């Protein structure tokens, strides 16, 4: 019963030699997408036997005129409502190509289905009704093609019969849509006038369109090619998993771009560890010594390395020469699909390749409805709108800017496990650690005035810079005691203590120290916003770090430079302009802590004479 088939005997099948091109047909609702598809299938003889007759019979039974779109609108619900719900896929072929036609619904509420279809496409036809012209969904779909990375695009101007096959009308629309697309960086390969219902311009040139010299729809389709994984770009192999089914430790993933060969030195981002490729594994097991020795973009492979470096899902294997960036903050242009808009401070999951990390929307730079010509807003990104946003991540992710590598430069956003948006990585902030989130409103049942009235002070951050050591910690505690004894609400944030918990994942490299400071600054700023006086004993900080802490904490930030001659100075030397300098060797600790209290009094944060609510808060 086992039918053994030798590949050597296989006769080449013409069907499988033709290139396969995935086409998405998009455009405004009712502009004729499904009709064009039905017509294309009919014209190219691609309909299954009996399908046309069956559908004609169904239409007759329901007392409706036959529509070409019935072919795709195969679901009961669709026929009842007269709109296409989801992305259907239908195969058809011309002499030169095999096509998968992806029908995408034009209705705004089904954009997630249009995206699902278009994200898989090699090329797109954007259809425009000659009578109605360019509509909001036409523009929106054009924008999405750009965002989804579909580069081959042609425009079909349908229903030319409704405008008397008039050239002037065609030229007007051609000019409008071409301008829109070119502004998005998309150049249509053709703009084709047709009447899909009657077949003019679909497979054959039409007498009625004698003024048109360009290709038919079928000829245009024949000019499209499969979008190939690019093996000329630098190697990017996102790790899907590390398998240890036997004594091999196999790193599995799909090569997104580039090539890899046994013996290559590779780097694993974001950690940056290096090793050499020992083998490329395959199944069925090859004859000894004859396993694959190289692989290229598009292949799903498994490799083993010559040394046991730590590798995990989400890492990207690259060559040492051209590595992806590892960033904890990125700017992205994203399309948002959820009903609730994205706002600054919103938490979401960011997925790039096989990696994911929790992220916070740190800033929204702009937001537009891609269906409208202008109309911008900047505080949130609404459903079906596009925004340029900054995202702060809880851990670094390896990625590339979209312009460098489209495959590792795109991301999706998920909320509670459901994909809710996606887009392009515009830039990665590599040197700078994330700053505090842009003006997140503090939702609290207690107002700042109420807190100030109780504590008799406003909120503040007192940041001790300079030598880290026993003196600084002691001074911080002395100031805390002093403020507490007068009825206040001080709190010490000691870096050494926080290292055990909040910053336990961070080591002692400069970027990790910088990240530790960022987190502490964030906690301190939060305490200050809620009326506490946060006293931070965090040790040395660079000028840039100090400037950023001050910026993050707002107006109630006070830097106290603690000098101690025999200990390490700040990396960039003493702070150029602290709010207070304390030399710990000169006076006793009580006097030193009193200076901090005076500083806060002078600044208006503290004041025994003041009434509640009048403190600097």
């Amino acid at each position, binding site marked *: *019963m086992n039918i053994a088939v030798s590949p050597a005997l296989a006769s080449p099948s013409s069907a499988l030699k033709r290139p396969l091109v995935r086409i998405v047909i998009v455009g405004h609702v009712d502009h004729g997408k499904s009709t064009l598809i039905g017509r294309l299938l009919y014209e190219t003889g691609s309909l299954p036997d009996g399908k046309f007759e069956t559908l004609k019979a169904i239409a007759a039974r329901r007392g409706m005129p036959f529509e070409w779109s019935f072919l795709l609108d195969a*679901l009961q619900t669709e026929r009842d409502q007269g709109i296409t719900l989801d992305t259907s896929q239908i195969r058809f072929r011309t002499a030169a190509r095999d096509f998968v036609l992806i029908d995408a619904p034009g209705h705004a509420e089904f954009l997630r289905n249009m995206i699902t279809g278009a994200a898989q496409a090699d090329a797109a036809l954007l259809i425009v009704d000659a009578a109605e012209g360019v509509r909001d969904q036409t523009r929106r779909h054009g924008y999405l093609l750009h965002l989804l990375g579909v580069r081959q695009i042609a425009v079909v101007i349908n229903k030319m019969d409704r405008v008397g096959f008039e050239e002037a009308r065609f030229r007007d629309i051609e000019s409008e849509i071409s301008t829109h697309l070119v502004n998005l960086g998309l150049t249509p390969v053709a703009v084709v006038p047709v009447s899909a219902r009657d077949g003019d311009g679909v497979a054959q040139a039409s007498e009625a369109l004698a003024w048109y010299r360009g290709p038919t729809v079928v000829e245009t389709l024949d000019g499209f090619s499969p979008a190939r994984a690019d093996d000329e770009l630098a190697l990017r192999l996102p790790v899907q998993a590390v398998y240890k089914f036997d004594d091999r430790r196999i790193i599995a993933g799909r090569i997104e771009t580039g090539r890899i060969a046994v013996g290559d030195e590779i780097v694993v981002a974001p950690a940056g560890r290096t090793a050499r490729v020992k083998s490329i594994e395959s199944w069925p097991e090859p004859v000894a010594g004859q396993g694959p020795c190289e692989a290229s973009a*598009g292949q799903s492979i*498994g490799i083993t390395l010559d040394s046991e470096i730590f590798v995990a899902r989400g890492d990207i294997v690259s060559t040492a020469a051209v590595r992806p960036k590892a960033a904890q903050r990125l700017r992205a242009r994203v399309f948002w699909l959820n009903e609730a808009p994205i706002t600054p401070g919103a938490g979401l999951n960011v997925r790039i390749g096989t990696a994911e990390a929790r992220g916070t929307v740190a800033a929204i730079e702009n937001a537009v409805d891609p269906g409208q010509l202008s109309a911008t807003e900047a505080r949130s990104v609404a459903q079906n709108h596009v925004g340029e946003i900054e995202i702060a991540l809880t851990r670094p992710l390896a990625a590339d800017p979209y312009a460098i590598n489209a495959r590792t430069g795109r991301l*999706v956003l998920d909320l509670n496990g459901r994909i809710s948006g996606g887009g392009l990585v515009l830039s990665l902030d590599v040197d700078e650690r994330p700053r505090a989130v842009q003006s997140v409103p503090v939702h609290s049942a207690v107002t700042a005035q109420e807190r100030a009235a109780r504590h008799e002070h406003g909120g503040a951050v007192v940041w001790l810079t300079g030598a880290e050591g026993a003196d600084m910690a002691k001074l911080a505690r002395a100031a805390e005691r002093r403020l507490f004894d007068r009825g206040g609400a001080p709190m010490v944030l000691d870096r050494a203590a926080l290292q055990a918990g909040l910053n336990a994942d961070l080591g002692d490299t400069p970027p990790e120290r910088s990240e530790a400071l960022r987190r502490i600054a964030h906690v301190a700023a939060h305490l200050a916003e809620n009326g506490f006086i946060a006293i931070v004993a965090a040790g040395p900080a660079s000028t840039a770090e100090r400037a950023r802490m001050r910026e993050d904490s707002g107006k109630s930030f006070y830097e106290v430079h603690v000098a101690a001659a025999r200990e390490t100075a700040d990396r960039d030397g003493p702070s150029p302009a602290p709010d207070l300098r304390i030399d710990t060797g000169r006076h006793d600790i009580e006097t030193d802590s009193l200076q901090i209290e005076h500083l806060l009094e002078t600044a208006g944060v503290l004041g025994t004479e003041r009434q509640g609510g009048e403190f600097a808060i």
Partner: protein
Amino acid sequence: MDRLGDLEAQSIFIFREAFARLKRLALLWSLGKDSNVMIWLARKAFFGRLPFPVLHVDTGKKFPEMYAFRERYAGEWNLDLLVEPCPPIEAVDATLPPAARSAARKTEGLKLALAKYGFDGLFAGIRRDEEATRAKERVFSPRGIEGGWDVRDQPPEFWDHFNASPPQGAHLRVHPILHWTEADIWAYTRRESIPIIPLYLACNGRRYRSLGDADITFPVASQATTIDEIIEELDATKIPERSGRAMDHEAEDAFERLRVSGYL
């Protein structure tokens, strides 16, 4: 890479994504050509072994050749085989047409297996080109608690990012060969020398294009006695693949109703 290489790489990627993101997986093995290709691809993805069981939801009415195939290759391929018998016809929605009602036993059997084993992901070997409602499927397709499919509320799939968080008590259908065609399946079966059930090859001018329960599956006229000839035949035919599956054709929406309630 050639076309089959592209298809294979994509399917392997899907298998590995599902294995990384879901906890309790099984592969639905119908014994047919598609699920055999699926098993082959899974072995490629995981370097020879299947790190999850295969589940045969057994109506008890398959062709004898199919049971023989199951017994032989469960052993040869070292599969962790689970067999779930289907409940009797009386347990199934009596408003369905007869053949669809018979096929719906499989849906009920599947529900029993889901309850018994608590799978959160099931690999299913459906393809978009088989049938119009399958064309609407996602690669990772969420199912309700009852196993139902809500075609109106499918989440988006951007590029190769899938939704892999089924709600508590529900499961995902994962479709690793959704993007393949019937001809692709045969060309790959030939290239990889994957064993098949001989019912697919013509005998006395008839062969089965699609295999299901013996009493509701019918052969088509064919002279194709080799896989090469099947591929040639498919290149020329315009007859739908599932034309020999009675439950698809009893009523305009019979198959869609089966699918909405959880059929493959």
